[in-house]
């Protein structure tokens, strides 16, 4: 435990945020929100990559960190993109082709996802265990 560095904790936080994102996405999808299968795959990849960082500093840790951050960015942008009408209609108080009642979830998802991306990037700048 003593060997764990800040990068470990950042990766752990990222991992937790990615899992929270996954849970939110499942709820979002069950309520009619559009989530492409590739998004779930990317999120799973992100969780695995960040979880791998928890094993400590390995030769491949830097690459999994990068991959995790990229996967999270993909998830964030794709969900936001697919939910753009939810937000647009909620802002205008109308119901047309989106699900404005899900706009709140879109904001929440974006918030959690952005936080995960930031911690993932920060984690990739830092060591996962002390030398």
């Amino acid at each position, binding site marked *: 435990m003593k060997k764990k560095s800040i990068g470990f904790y950042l990766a752990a936080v990222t991992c937790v945020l990615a899992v929270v994102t996954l849970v939110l996405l499942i709820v979002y999808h069950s309520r009619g929100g559009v989530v492409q299968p590739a998004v779930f795959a990317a999120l799973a990849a992100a969780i695995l990559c960040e979880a791998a960082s928890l094993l400590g500093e390995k030769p491949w840790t830097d690459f999994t960190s990068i991959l995790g951050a990229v996967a999270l960015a993909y998830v964030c942008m794709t969900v936001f993109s697919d939910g753009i009408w939810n937000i647009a209609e909620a802002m205008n108080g109308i119901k*047309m082709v989106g699900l404005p009642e899900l706009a709140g979830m879109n904001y929440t998802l974006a918030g959690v996802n952005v936080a995960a991306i930031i911690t993932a990037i920060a984690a990739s700048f830092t060591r996962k265990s002390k030398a």
Partner: protein
Amino acid sequence: MKHEKLWSGLTSIFAVLMVIAMIGNTLATANASYINSQLGINTARVVEKGTAPTDTTYYKSQFGAFDSADAQAKAIAAALEQNVNEMREGAALLMNKDSVLPLKGVTKISVFGHGAVDPAYQAASAGTKAKTGSVNTIDLKTALENGGFQVNETLWNGLLAGTAARGVMQQGWGGMTMAVTGSAAGSEENRAFYEQFADSYAEYSDAAIVVFTREGAEGTDLIMQDKDDEGGSTEPISALALHKNERDLLEMVRERFGKVVVLLNSPNQMEVHEIKEYADAILFIGFPGHQGFTGVAEILNGTVNPSGKLVDTYATSSLSAPATVNSGTETPLFMNVDEINNTIGADERAEYISFQAENIYIGYRYYETRYADAVMGKGNASSNVGALKGAESWKYADEVQYPFGYGLSYTTFEQTLDSVTVGEDEITASVTVKNTGDVAGKSVVQLYAQTPYGQYEIDHRVEKSAIAIVGFGKTGLLQPGASETVKVTVDRYLLASYDMTANDGQGGYILSEGDYYLAIGDDAHDALNNVLAAQGYTVDNGMTAAGVSAKSYKWTESFNSEKYRYGANGVAVSNQFQDCDLNYWVEGAGTYLSRNDWAGTYPVSKTTVNATAEMMDILDGEWYVKPEDAPSFAEVAAPFEVQSGLNLASMKDIPLSDRDTWEKFIYQLKVDDLPMATAESFSCPAVGELSPSFAVGDGCDSVGGNYPIPVTINGEEVTVPTTRYCSNPIMTGTFNYDIIANRGTMLGEDGMWSKFMINYNVGNDLHRTPFGGRSFEYMSECPTMNYLAGRAEVEAMEKTGSHAAPKHFVGNDQEFYRDGVACFFTEQAFREGNLRAFEGSVRMANAGGIMQSFSRLGLKWNSASYALNTQVLRNEWGWNGAIDTDAAPCFGEYVDGGYRNHAAEVLAAGTQEWCLDGVGGHGTWVLNKARETNDGHLLNLLKEAAISWEYAISRSVIANGYSSTAVIEHITPWWATALNVLTICSGVLALACLAMLILSKIKSRKAK
């Protein structure tokens, strides 16, 4: 190691940035039309290749040049004046006990009601938004103060700090709240709130003004089974009924003020019977738009004498309208909805069914017809079926508070029916109006007709309204004692009824045999009483008042099924919508209301069915089959890409009948350009080199654009939005063709100044029930009223350079569950109701386009109905405008499937543009399908769509600036370049950092 982490981190940053830029770029490209319209970017410019052109401003503003600030100021002033004039002449005074209005000598007033400080200037939907404090908006307090009133500041400020809000506030994820409109619960402060300011009332007690608001929205109807306020009824109540806090407020105000005036800030018909108990005066003001409150204040202070009339029936119970049983928030599901979803997929949106049991009996056509039959003792009209709860029999006086056409004045008028001339095609009535009071004012002449309902009609199930408006006119300002003669001309077509059995079962319009009556009246009920009087009925027969037979005119017609048998170009008008009758699919599934038996046919419960396999097959939406005689793709594609030297300027005077020239024009395109002519969005893309990108207007009661020249207000440079006019029921309620036509003119001006080719903004749908979330956008409950008003508005708008496109064609009369709701009806009800409501705008006034509806006609989406879009619009009506879907967005790649995405079927039905598809995704898919299946028929349809679209463009302000030697150059918007650069740079940097990371790792390994 240190460097490895640096490169690792930097790689992450740039790779993340690249992903964001890439997906952002895709998102932005898909929404390019919106971004460009918001940023004011035009993606094409006109370049003159010849000698200096002469004047190429083919479509001019009546106010001057489009680059003149002075002309713009005049245009804005004229638009705002129109807005105020609509309220001056459209607000309807419903009650004026002891002539409490005008408030002469009254200066110090208290204004109550959350709606006073938070009025609905309009409801949430497309178009310009007016709100308190926004440019050009005049709020109620300012209007009242400008009108000479002193407003109780303590109360006003208290209301501003209040917590009441329209609709239910929902707690969303992430703490977000979203207002769901449609409920009236919680929309008013409670009595305790108002008691806080009681000390201020004495000083401002000359009069109390109480504002009540009801507001639906696009996608949201008013709720039929609403909650009451806290402490109120535990049973559901209508959202249009008085809620507890409102009742308490009225009670308190009545106790403390000598004069109580209620303003109905609602385009939907509130249930006013309780308000009448407390108020001295009630003024219907609908939604005021930017400056309608000025007109309200002028009516209150007497500067203006009200002359507006209701265009809807105000029933005691809004739920007594037979249409409420199967619509709005009470729309039933198909019984086997799960099976439907499992069979055809939930994305086909085939869950809800709206059986239009009311038949032709919408609004006054129900209440007045039932009244007539009750008086005549026919059709079990007095039965208590459909009567108010607990009533032993149906009584008009109990059922209706204010009839269609009702509205008081500060003076009195006497109307005399001088003469009626029945011609072959038209009927002309001459009416003399005399101001018999002591105040100047305007009077509306309302002309109604009754056509025979005899044994033929009973046997052939041809329903008849006992009274229907067929024409109207309005006097100028008549001084006391002055007279004016008003001539009202009626198209005899409006007296015809659609008979599904006529012409040996082919169907068609008939003129019934028997006695016809024309009558004038102060409203629909008064006119009917005049007819009944002429027929020998009196109050002894149960009439609410004695009629005046001299105000009616009778003549006789013989049966005629030939006169209106043929439409445009000799095309026979015949049954097209038999499959929209539910009984066509499931025998005996639904009963339509008939005046032959009110008790036996009034809908007392919801109608729904199990959709059969055959029905599901059609609900699935895929029916297109390549015609056997379809030409090959190559055959149709062969003439393309041949330059003829024709451009927009060359085409602006070429009629559509000159097919050769239009085809030569279109053949300059590549076939791959054709889908761009099917793309309608915030900003429509250029079509090859033929026409540039341009924006369109959207939103009834406004066009949603901006004036081009910024103005300085209070030292700040601002962009002025186009005007939000009064809600349509106010405009229609003026019963003044000049005002209605000038609305069209000003909308056209607004469109031209905003450089809009076309405007989807003339709301012709019916107020099928009082609960419609977009009643504010639609004209009235009466199809003939919409026919007459729509025609006047669109004719005027089409004279400008910005087209009118009525919407939502056709039958968009509910907002809840509107996506794909399967509507079933009789062909007579559809043709004399929904279609008639649009016929004035589309067929008679030749609108430049239409926007369709989300609903289904029977089992087919409106946009995919060949019967509607080709048989009726093109063949029967001979109309050539552009047919656009309602929103069917496509962002990037189109995926076939889902009820808005059956592109081949939609195009084959006659629809030509897809709304919110700025990338031409639907059209591109059709083109690819045509190519893959060697289907020249589909390619031909794309060509026809391009002709239609370019024809509309060539007759619009978009053609301004083109000479016959001008060409179009395309421009890439700056944001697209920026996003591309960002994507490339971040990608290169990510790769470079990744390379450095790998090198560092190699170095590090070597060092070890």
